[in-house]
């Protein structure tokens, strides 16, 4: 037999094996290593903005493939514990601010986005992003539905001290109440200041707020 | 020079369904940019002919959207008939394009 011919057969068989036999899904550790490298290669960022790519402990836990349904009880408990520990209250101790300021922030999605290296500065601080995901005052159609409707939030709950604190905590770090929820940890991530959050609390709870009309 | 239009003319029953897309900025004359207000610039008239005979004469304001669309129907058209479209804007720019009516697909 012609040796070239045999070589050719071996080549065909081995390359077929290479394609059909060897290639397969990588294991999770390999995927993780590859993907994490991809993240840091993909963005151009100032050193101060690297933290936007880094994951904290809770974000790592909450990034389960398939979503939070795959959380173990232990993991969920850890996220809640970390979230509770993160909550800071305004130095004044007052958790109930100005609903009018809150009403403006509720409809603002601006602030802190980065384009061409420039960080967006929003008047009155970062928007509270509520409109993007929640129905707010009655009759407003340009609202999202990612989160539950907040229409009549205060009307249904009153504004007892317990409700005020619960609402403040939920906005500051929603993961303290629902671990790995889709809702950003607005206070814990410093997207909103504690003072801004007190305005959001008032917007949600005040009987005069349009959300409770 | 003005960009070509995209014209589709298809037989639906005994009518031609004509759909025209034009490329034009349709500036309202009020839009502000960093370099000042963009001057009024819009298509004022569009005329559509079927085998050389007018079937539609449109007069537009600056309120017609950018990259405008015009849809119409022409009774009694047959496959192969010519549909010709001409637009003229307020600066005097013009563009004419023509297609043949396609049989129903």
């Amino acid at each position, binding site marked *: 037999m012609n040796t070239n011919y045999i070589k050719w057969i071996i080549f065909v068989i081995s390359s077929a094996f290479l*394609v059909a036999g060897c290639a397969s899904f*990588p294991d999770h550790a390999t995927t993780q290593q590859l993907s994490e490298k*991809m993240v840091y290669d993909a963005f151009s960022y100032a050193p101060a903005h690297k933290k936007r790519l*880094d994951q904290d402990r809770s974000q790592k836990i909450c990034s389960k493939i398939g*979503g939070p349904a795959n959380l173990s009880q232990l993991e969920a408990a850890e996220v809640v514990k970390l979230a509770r520990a993160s909550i800071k209250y305004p130095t004044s101790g007052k958790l109930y601010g100005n609903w009018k300021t809150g009403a403006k922030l509720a409809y603002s999605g601006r602030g802190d986005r*980065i384009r061409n290296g420039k960080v967006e500065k929003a008047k009155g601080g970062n928007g509270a992003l509520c409109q993007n995901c929640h129905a707010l005052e009655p009759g407003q159609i340009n609202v*999202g*539905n990612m989160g*539950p409707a907040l229409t009549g939030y205060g009307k249904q709950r009153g504004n007892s001290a317990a409700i005020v604190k619960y609402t403040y905590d939920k906005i500051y770090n929603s993961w303290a109440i629902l671990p790995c929820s889709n809702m*950003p940890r607005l206070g814990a991530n410093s997207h909103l200041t504690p003072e801004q959050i007190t305005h959001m609390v008032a917007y949600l709870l005040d009987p005069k707020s349009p959300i409770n009309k | 020079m003005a960009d070509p239009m995209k014209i589709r003319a298809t037989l639906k029953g005994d009518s031609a369904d004509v759909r025209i897309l034009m490329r034009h900025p349709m500036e309202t004359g009020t839009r502000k940019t960093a370099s000042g207000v963009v001057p009024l610039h819009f298509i004022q008239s569009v005329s559509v002919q079927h085998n050389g005979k007018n079937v539609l004469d449109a007069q537009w304001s600056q309120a017609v959207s950018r990259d405008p669309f015009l849809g119409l129907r022409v009774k009694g058209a047959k496959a192969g008939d010519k549909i010709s479209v001409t637009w003229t804007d307020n600066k005097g720019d013009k563009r004419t394009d023509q297609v043949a009516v396609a049989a129903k697909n």
Partner: protein
Amino acid sequence: MELKRGLSLTAGAMLLLTMSLSAAAQNDLSVGRKMLVEDNPGELWIDQGKDLFYKKRGPKNVSLEKCDFGMGPGKLEGAAASLPRYFDDTDRVEDLESRLITCMTNLQGMDRAKIIKSAISRPRSKGSEIEALALFVTSKSNGMKVNVTLSHQKEYDAYKAGEYLFYRRSGQTDFGCVQCHGEDKKRVRLQDLINMTSTPGAQEVASTWPAYRGAHYVVRTMQWRLNDCVWQMRLPDLKYGTDYAIALTTFLNHRGNDAVMQVPGFKR
């Protein structure tokens, strides 16, 4: 416990309210959407891309006719529907846009940095070369089925990385892709969000880009879509044609297989 019960009760009432609201919004919006998709100004970009494709350009003064999108040099029919895929010459998985840049630099001798700098056009402009070329090449797959296969090891790697990145949360919004694209019938404000964890959702993604973006009056590509997402997520600037973007696109398009290509799409 008391609080929890109270909450779930009101949550039930809220759910009803939200449902009726979104059902109404769906019907009210659908008429306009259908009218806009049927006669899509994005079609005006196809011929622009065709001219750019066949014109001799760049320092080497050649057209893109020899560009291999994976079906052989110059073969465009069905090519975009099979991307991303692994390419021998670059030893890399490439999507349509990165492959176009490969050909423009290797065949035509153009400057990569320059192409990328103008790749995402300004709103109300004539559009970029990449936007027009990507639409023209993809339009050659119209009516054909999305068919992104995994066979090379790097294709498997890209798919899995895309899946990992889809769920990866970071930054001050705690967002990964799945936070907005993990459930049916969700909206951000009035805009529908595609559930990309479902097959129909992935199919919509794989078959409708590039698309005419009404608010910008230009044709946009998948790369633009990703850029805008990470901007809203408050991540830093996403570079053009990265493995990150290609991995996400591989993950989405492979799961979008069997969708019938129909470009340009129309996005509000």
